[in-house]
């Protein structure tokens, strides 16, 4: 059975090969759907930077549109980093401030809303803009959610987790870092503390209560290798962290399924009739 010291090595990728596979994924999806290109929300973080870089490689920079969608409380460095990425990749970047849309709703209808609800609203506002721009440009919305955050449910359903195609969804966070380094994305982007940047000072690891590298390893053992929480703890991982990850993983499974349809007929969509989309 796999030992703790071996796990990190199992999460190493051959970056050249992985890049080739993921760029071919983007190219194939765009070609098969007949889209003109992709539209991506560029946040200044490493996930969206990597997704965008892969798309620029796959399609050429002229077929990638980056949207910077800050709210007034977003960290200014986020936009600077996002612009640096767009510049490095030679892609068009457009900024749309979402503050008026968000504020109009909460000021008028829900002044008491807490920051999580506001954060969710921002994520869905961004999604709405991305799909609008995709429609305008005959493009696909490029996803930026990695495997770690999908499994932990650390996302807004129908918000940042919504996309037409997602090249990162089978990459753990540290694999995202590996590829981002391999593609020589700006250091400030690769090395910054991951943050949803939905309110000042928010960090993923602060909010989750554990480090991504640990989460990746625990999730790999749990999800990829099928080990129980007890078996994972027996390999030297902190029991509290493992049970927290286990709880998040099981509680957020609903976010990984697009639609839960009540089956009435014997030909329900997806359950009885699995029709491939390709």
């Amino acid at each position, binding site marked *: 059975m796999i030992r703790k010291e071996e796990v990190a090595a199992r999460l190493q990728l051959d970056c050249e090969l992985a890049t080739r*596979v993921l760029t071919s*994924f983007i190219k194939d999806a765009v070609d098969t759907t007949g889209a003109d290109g992709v539209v991506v929300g560029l946040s200044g973080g490493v996930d969206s930077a990597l997704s965008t870089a892969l798309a620029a490689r796959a399609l050429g920079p002229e077929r990638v549109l980056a949207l910077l969608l800050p709210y007034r409380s977003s960290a200014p460095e986020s936009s600077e980093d996002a612009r640096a990425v767009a510049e490095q990749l030679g892609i068009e970047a457009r900024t749309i401030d979402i503050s008026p849309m968000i504020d109009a709703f909460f000021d008028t209808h829900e002044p008491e809303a807490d920051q999580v609800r506001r954060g969710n609203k921002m994520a869905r506002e961004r999604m709405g803009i991305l799909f609008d721009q995709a429609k305008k440009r005959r493009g696909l919305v490029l996803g930026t959610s990695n495997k770690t955050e999908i499994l932990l449910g650390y996302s807004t359903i129908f918000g940042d987790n919504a996309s037409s195609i997602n090249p990162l969804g089978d990459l753990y966070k540290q694999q995202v870092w590996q590829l981002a380094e391999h593609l020589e994305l700006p250091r400030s982007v690769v090395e910054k503390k991951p943050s949803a940047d939905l309110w000042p000072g928010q960090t993923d690891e602060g909010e989750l209560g554990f480090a991504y590298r640990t989460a990746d390893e625990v999730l790999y053992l749990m999800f990829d290798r099928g080990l129980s929480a007890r078996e994972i703890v027996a390999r030297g991982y902190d029991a509290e962290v493992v049970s927290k990850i286990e709880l998040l993983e099981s509680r957020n499974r609903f976010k990984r399924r697009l639609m839960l349809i009540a089956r009435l007929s014997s030909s329900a969509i997806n359950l009885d009739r699995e*029709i491939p989309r*390709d």
Partner: protein
Amino acid sequence: MSTKITVGIAQIDSRLGDVAANLERHLEWIGRAHERGADLLVFPELSLTGYRLLHLTGRVAAIPSESGAIRALIAAAGAMKVVVGLVEEDEKGVLYNTALVLRDGAIEQRHRKLYLPTYGIFQEGRFFGAGSDLSPPIDGLGLLICEDLWHPHLARSLALAGAKVLVVSSAGPGHLGPGAVPESQEAWEALTRAAALVNTCWVVYCNRVGWEEGSFYTGGSHVVRPGGEIVSRSPFLDEDLLVTEIDTREVDRLRWRLPLVRATRTDIEGTA
């Protein structure tokens, strides 16, 4: 057939569920293989229909003797043996994952996949019936489809029945590990090389490329010499026509000094 065979492997992508588009591509590649002087051209598993069909399986099924696509392929094949993959429907309405050898105006050979993987990403058992027997080799050529090779006694049985060239059509999805070669490819090469070693025969492995439902096919098609040496290989992920000269006399020569097939204890192994 002469002992010298020019083998072509058509490592193509297929459009899922679009037989007309795939037929077009087959005809084009058959033309290219003729130009290269191929005696045998192998297409991947379910090459005419695409692989991950799920509930589209029945919609693209064909009865070979009544299929216009098969007629067109037979006409294009001429004297070249062409191995194509399709969803075959029989007279009872059962669907099979089938490979056909087409040549000289006829369907020369037919293999219905015997092992239908239904685990992990694979769902074949839900949609297909399994074939009931191995089709005997013709001109020393034995046919297997993908998962069939993971059950080694089938390759052995074909060798015992006279196969000197094992043709394996595949739609093998790729996955990566830490290495520079896809993990899936390492497994396949272990299998094809072992089959060529223990059965002392040629192995022609054709895998497809392209994406279906977010899963890619590796490609990496190759030809293995009797004894296990890989003599030619297509790239990963890209379409490729791989043309390789082989000589079935190499099988005989190796079997003289390495009589594994001759020595097979069918009374114990239960094969043949």
